[in-house]
């Protein structure tokens, strides 16, 4: 399993539109992908769960991936979240 820390820079936070993009990305991979905000840890393949972690501007998130394609999965998703800016 590999992990990476990302800072939510977007003013709007991880809102519905980027969350649905994260889900679409996560579903391409076999690996189990999770997003962690403090004590909340959720499956990145569920939009409902991603929205419930309530990631706002300035939230420090941890993304983990575990499985055969974990490297590519983590790279794509963590980079996407880190680059969100609106």
């Amino acid at each position: 399993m590999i992990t990476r820390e990302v800072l939510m820079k977007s003013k709007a936070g991880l809102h519905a539109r980027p969350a649905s993009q994260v889900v679409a990305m996560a579903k391409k991979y076999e690996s189990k992908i999770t997003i962690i905000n403090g004590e909340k840890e959720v499956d990145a393949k569920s939009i409902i769960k991603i929205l419930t972690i309530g990631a706002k501007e300035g939230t420090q998130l941890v993304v983990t991936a575990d499985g055969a394609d974990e490297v590519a999965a983590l790279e794509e998703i963590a980079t996407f979240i880190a680059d969100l800016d609106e």
Partner: protein
Amino acid sequence: MKKIQVANRASKGIAMGQAFIVEPQKWTISKEKIAESAISVEQEKFAAVVEEAVAELGVLAEESEIFAAHKEIAEDDTLKETVAMKIAEDGKNAQWALEEAVNEIVEMFEAMEDEYFRERAADIKDVGKRMMAKLLGVKVDPFSGIKEEVIVVAQDLSPSETATMDFSLVKGFVTELGGTTSHVAIMARSMGIPAFVGVMDFRKEVTNDTYLILDALDKEIVCDPTPFEKSEYVKKSEEYAAHKLLLEKIKDLPAATTDKHVVELYANAGSVADVKQAAAAGAEGIGLFRSEFLYMENVKFPTEDEQYEAYKASVEAIGHPMIIRTLDIGGDKGLPYYMFPEEENPFLGWRAIRISLELHDVFCTQLRAILRASAYGKIKIMYPMVTSLREIREANALLAECKDQLRAEGVAFDEDIECGIMIETPAAVMCAEDFAKEVNFFSIGTNDLTQYMLAVDRGNQRISHLYHSFHPAVLRSIHHVILAGHKAGIEVGMCGEFAGEELAVPILLGMGLDEFSMSSSEITTVKAQIRSLSFEECQTLAAEVCALSTTKDVMEYLDSHM
């Protein structure tokens, strides 16, 4: 007639029409337990409904991103698994299981702290409703009865419902629930439909016989107006439409007076995002890039590369000249990572250029970053709070050193980069003629200039009424600086709030100000104003105003002449 004041406007404009009240649909959900043998039938029923909903939302998603999120919700394992479990383990039928599953998820969202995430409960409900209608075999079309132009009044409108509205007949809407960040509010704005959200108990005020006017300019709802009142609103609505059209039309036109005197309208910015907004608003340049935000929103002094990236991205985003003001801190602006000495009089203390000329490393890091970015667009450097020629010369000497370094390193920059100063101290006003010979431009900072010229601390409640940029001393200072600049053949701009003030614009124009820099949102309004003025008349006005001896006389004169 009855007028209701409202607080939450979702979207601007004026709309009128007969009220059309959407009654909440009441569905009877069967609460019958199912036999074990029926479990697989109910599971399949639900799976088929999910599939249908996903297909429908897939089509809608092409039109609106909101439905892309709805599609993900419909496909979501959390929802599907919860429903499947309630069917298999609790022996509930598909409808009952769906209702409970949706309610549980909705409760989870409604308990969240942040308004944005709380409002996502509405999206979950909407998807649940879409599925439930399919399970029950009913059609959801609350607007089927609309035959004429109406204002829709509802307890709440889901994005799905909003998307099915026929906007040739629905002129606006009012909901009792929802906030300004709800998806229906966002949709109303993107479609330019006047709308109010969160108007508590509004359905008690109206019936389908009520005629409604939504004045979403002044945040008022008018019920049953007289024909005369209605005609007033028709007039107001036409004026607003004409005004909007005018602003749109002049966006790409120059700020020229009726007698063809052209000035430059620039924007003030503090970040790359601000610069992008300025470009969209039609700014012809950035008259003040407040570099201090790069320092204030950081945990340490920003590195040369960090600054270079920000300046480069900004000048590329505007594609026009950009004036970067070097670090302007001290006074009321501190840094979280640097201890400033305690001072009796911070505004008369160690601030702006005075700090830069002492902290050479910090200043040169910034100058190098600005120089490097100048290879990518027209950048100008501006020193803040200058009071003497010595400061200008010292700063320029450091700038020359930085240029030498970069040249030796083979790094590209604009060899002829222009350097100017802020005029915001009485010393700079009095010595403007001398300063003008050694700089490429002036920019008048009216906020500080007013404070220093009148010796008034703006933050001090007791004397804040004495702070007045229309004071003859301030007006004459501005006039003097413009004349001094022009005598030396350099441009004079202004980057204080005064440059965007309606009453000040004709005076400044008449004094011959070359460049007006203001917040992006004011640009089109000021441009419309300038395009309606005559330069010759403004020159007369400016000369007469400068001859008046009290602030009161100035204000009275402006009142009677504009």
